[in-house]
């Protein structure tokens, strides 16, 4: 602080302000008015040391003015949005009603209409909130663990709703017409198989005497009796459903529902993350008030548990210490020499190559496992258990890879010498990539099997091994989902509960070293995003998969809640609720993007199988749309062709780029204005202090001529009640800029 700011020294004891400052209009408007006082007067709740007697007259004047100004400013806002006591709010409301009565009938009616509309909207919102799923459970979790873990559970609830809506879409537009056709006197035209080799689909239901465990194997892998049901793509050999008054194009509906649920998921996720985006993208300062956020919004006021409160405090302490430490580390990083930087860069390159090698190794294992599993499924069944293991081999390999690689990554990143926050984020990104890419590798290896035949492929795909390849892909997705569910349940029952029992009852060193289970939010979130990605990819091939996914997430909620409440303690490294919401939705978006790619490629590129499914007579699944467009009236047809043409696409792209540049330029201009205003504000503050200092100096000189205590004016004087001048000095006048 320079000498001009010597009027207040922030680390001094006692009142350091000039009473003149208290009379400024800007200060008066910030006065507290928490007393249930009578009409008109407003007593200040300031500390008793300030010059009360002197300032009271001017106080009343300035406070009355400020009150009027505030009243006119707040007239438009509803009464309850003002920070006043109940008494004062009542009086305000009465005043407003008085004013309303004096106005004409029209504005009166307008106001009462607005009020009743607001009341109706509040009642409606009440009702909706009462219908919210799992409100009580989430409230309990919030009280015990705070808002960080709460965000995981509300994310899970969001996914349950999303999957349910997807199931309703699929059911309503694809299954319902087929189911309702007989009762609504509709006529279902199925495909008749011609005798070409491509449309030969051997039945896969088991013949003869079936052993009981075959049914279990079929249930777990989607073969046998499950194959020819609504569960899989192959069952929908329907060309159209003809009702008395209109005919329903089922293949087109199937394709459009796929596009619709992908689009709906995208829109809903983006809408949910809109607020988080704004906060996380608009960071014009380096540190972006991270300390202020931690201190002012750091405490979760909803915690009701004494234990959780203590843990929250220790985690806040840990977080503050780490952040202060990180600041010091950043300083150290900035001080690095060039030799150091080269060494660290070389080390990072080597470690990244190692990471890529690990990833490539895992992907190769998944590829080989998938091919082995497919070949094993072609052979006749031998041993029940071995068959099941071969069927589930890709899932097993993926799960093991996803279990081992995070440990490897967190070990490697310690050597790469990043700042702690970046370390965590980087490891997380690597784990996300590993999880989601493993599904892609599985699909890729499946497709390489499907489209590879000896010699040429007469039907475009390997019709001998895969007469209905979409059903096979659907079965693989179904198996992935079932196995994921089994693993979540098994880990909770066989790892977390024993760990708790060992920790509580066995006093050996191993238990203390292993420690209590911590609810690791990032890993849990990755788990459910993985499950959701499988659902998005698999719904095209297995239309009932969203329903299975809804039930699975529903049960997972209760499993996780029970495990959390009984086994876990809150994490030592706290997870911010807002940034965690943003993180979840970003990871989900990455999953969605990765899920769209296989679906779109298979719809547009790979020929649809000619033995099953709704797209038998189309070359690829996408061809339904051009055929349908051809059947439209001429005007609409030309409009749609124009939309899909190149000139339109190019001009749309150019216009989007221009809009983006304009918005970026606007943001830059606003930022500049904000900086200028900031500097101006700081300068105004200094001007104010400078003027007050001059004023008090002049007053002092004037009073020094009257009173006999002029000799004492150079020393610091404590506040006593001085009748004439509500002025006291804190320091002798500085010599820099205030010479008269």
């Amino acid at each position, binding site marked *: 602080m320079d000498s001009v700011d010597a009027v*207040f020294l922030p680390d001094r004891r006692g*009142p350091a302000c000039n009473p003149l400052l208290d009379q400024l209009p800007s200060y008066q408007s910030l006065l507290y008015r928490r007393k249930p006082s009578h009409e008109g007067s407003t007593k200040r709740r300031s500390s008793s040391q300030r010059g009360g007697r002197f300032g009271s007259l001017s106080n009343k004047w300035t406070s009355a003015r400020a009150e009027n100004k505030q009243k006119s400013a707040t007239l438009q806002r509803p009464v309850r949005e*003002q920070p006043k*006591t109940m008494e004062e709010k009542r009086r305000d409301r009465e005043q407003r009603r008085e004013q309303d009565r004096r106005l004409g009938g029209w504005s009166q009616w307008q106001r009462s209409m607005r009020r009743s509309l607001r009341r109706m909207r509040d009642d409606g919102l009440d009702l909706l909130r009462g219908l919210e799923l799992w409100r009580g459970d989430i409230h309990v979790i919030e009280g015990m663990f705070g808002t960080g873990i709460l965000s995981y559970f509300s994310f899970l609830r969001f996914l349950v709703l999303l999957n349910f809506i997807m199931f309703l879409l699929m059911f309503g537009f694809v299954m319902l017409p087929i189911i309702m056709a007989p009762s609504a006197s509709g006529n279902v035209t199925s495909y008749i198989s011609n005798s070409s080799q491509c449309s030969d689909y051997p039945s896969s239901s088991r013949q003869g005497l079936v052993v009981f465990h075959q049914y279990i194997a079929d249930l777990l892998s989607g073969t046998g009796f499950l194959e020819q049901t609504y569960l899989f793509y192959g069952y929908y050999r329907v060309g159209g459903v003809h009702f008395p008054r209109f005919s329903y194009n089922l293949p087109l509906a199937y394709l459009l529902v796929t596009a619709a649920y992908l689009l709906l998921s995208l829109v809903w996720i983006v809408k949910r993350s809109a607020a988080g985006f704004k906060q996380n993208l608009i960071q014009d300062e380096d540190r972006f008030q991270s*300390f202020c956020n931690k201190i*002012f919004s750091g*405490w979760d006021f909803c915690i*009701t548990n004494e234990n959780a409160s203590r843990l929250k405090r220790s985690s806040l302490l840990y977080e503050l210490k780490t952040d202060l430490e990180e600041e010091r580390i950043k300083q150290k990083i900035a001080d690095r020499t060039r030799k150091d930087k080269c060494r660290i860069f070389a080390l990072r390159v080597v470690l990244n190559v190692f990471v890529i090698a690990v990833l490539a190794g895992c992907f190769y294992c998944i590829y080989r496992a998938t091919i082995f599993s497919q070949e094993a499924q072609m052979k006749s069944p031998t041993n029940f258990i071995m068959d099941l293991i071969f069927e589930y081999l890709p899932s097993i390999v993926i799960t093991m890879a996803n279990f081992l690689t995070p440990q490897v990554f967190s070990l490697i990143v310690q050597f790469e010498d990043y700042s702690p926050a970046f370390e965590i984020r980087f490891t997380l990104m690597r784990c996300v990539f590993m999880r989601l890419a493993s599904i892609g590798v599985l699909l890729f290896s499946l497709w390489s099997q499907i489209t590879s035949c000896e010699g040429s492929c007469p039907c475009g795909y390997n019709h001998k091994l895969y007469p209905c390849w979409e059903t096979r892909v659907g079965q693989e997705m179904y198996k992935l989902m079932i196995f994921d569910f089994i693993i979540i349940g098994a880990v909770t029952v066989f790892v977390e509960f024993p760990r708790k029992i060992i920790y509580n009852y066995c006093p050996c060193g191993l238990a203390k070293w292993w420690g209590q289970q911590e609810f690791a939010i990032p890993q849990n979130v990755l788990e459910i995003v993985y499950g959701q990605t499988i659902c998005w990819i698999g719904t095209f091939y297995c239309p009932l998969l969203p329903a299975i996914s809804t039930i699975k997430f529903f049960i997972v909620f209760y499993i996780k809640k029970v495990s959390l409440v009984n086994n876990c303690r809150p994490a030592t490294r706290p997870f911010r609720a807002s940034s965690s919401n943003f993180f979840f939705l970003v990871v989900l978006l990455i999953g969605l993007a990765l899920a769209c790619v296989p679906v779109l490629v298979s719809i547009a590129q790979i020929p649809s199988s000619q033995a099953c499914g709704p797209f038998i007579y189309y070359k690829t699944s996408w061809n339904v749309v051009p055929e349908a467009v051809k059947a439209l009236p001429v005007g609409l047809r030309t409009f749609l062709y124009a939309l899909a043409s190149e000139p339109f696409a190019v001009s749309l792209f150019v216009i989007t780029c221009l809009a983006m540049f304009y918005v970026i330029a606007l943001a830059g201009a606003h930022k500049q204005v904000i900086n200028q205003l900031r500097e101006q504000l*700081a300068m105004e503050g200094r001007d104010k202090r400078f003027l007050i200092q001059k004023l008090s100096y002049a007053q002092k000189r004037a009073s020094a001529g009257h009173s006999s205590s002029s000799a004492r004016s150079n020393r610091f004087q404590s506040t006593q009640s001085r009748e004439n001048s509500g002025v006291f000095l804190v320091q002798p006048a500085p010599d820099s800029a205030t010479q008269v």
Partner: protein
Amino acid sequence: MGGTTSQLPKDLLSEYQELTFLTKQEILLAHKRFSDFTREGRNSPSPRVPMEKILTLPELKSNPFRERICQVFSTSDVKDGSLTFEDFLDLLSAFSDSATLEIKSHYAFRIFDFDDDGTLDGGDLEKLVNCLTGDTDDTRLTQEEMRQLISNILEESDIDKDGTVNLSEFQHVISRSPDFVSSFKIVL
């Protein structure tokens, strides 16, 4: 036991609904919980419950700011932190889900202003940090760390560089803090 003395008249209920952010169920629940405290006292029209009893509520018991909350919302003349039922409703309204950001930030500022002088200076911030981390010797930050922390906070939030954070600066910081609304919440 309960009976007619603990029923809220309907017009009062709708008045409270209009003047606060609470729903009907929340007001009735608050009334029930508050009546537990006043059952022993005399049946005056607006009984005032002393601070010690309010602090036994489970929602406030583990909160490091519980005394400040009571003092801020209290309308008593002797500044002892006692609350009437309407003060209690004001408290719940400010901490409810549907309260606006301005209301929450206004009351948060007053809760953090430990010496009630209208600004958050270094002493207030130090007390605030000690409340957050715990006030015993082994849970406090060192002097050096505290100094570093307070200077960082002031650097981030003090716009006019006067060494204190006033209400407008505080509200400006809060408006850009994404966690505030979800953490500044108490639901019965």
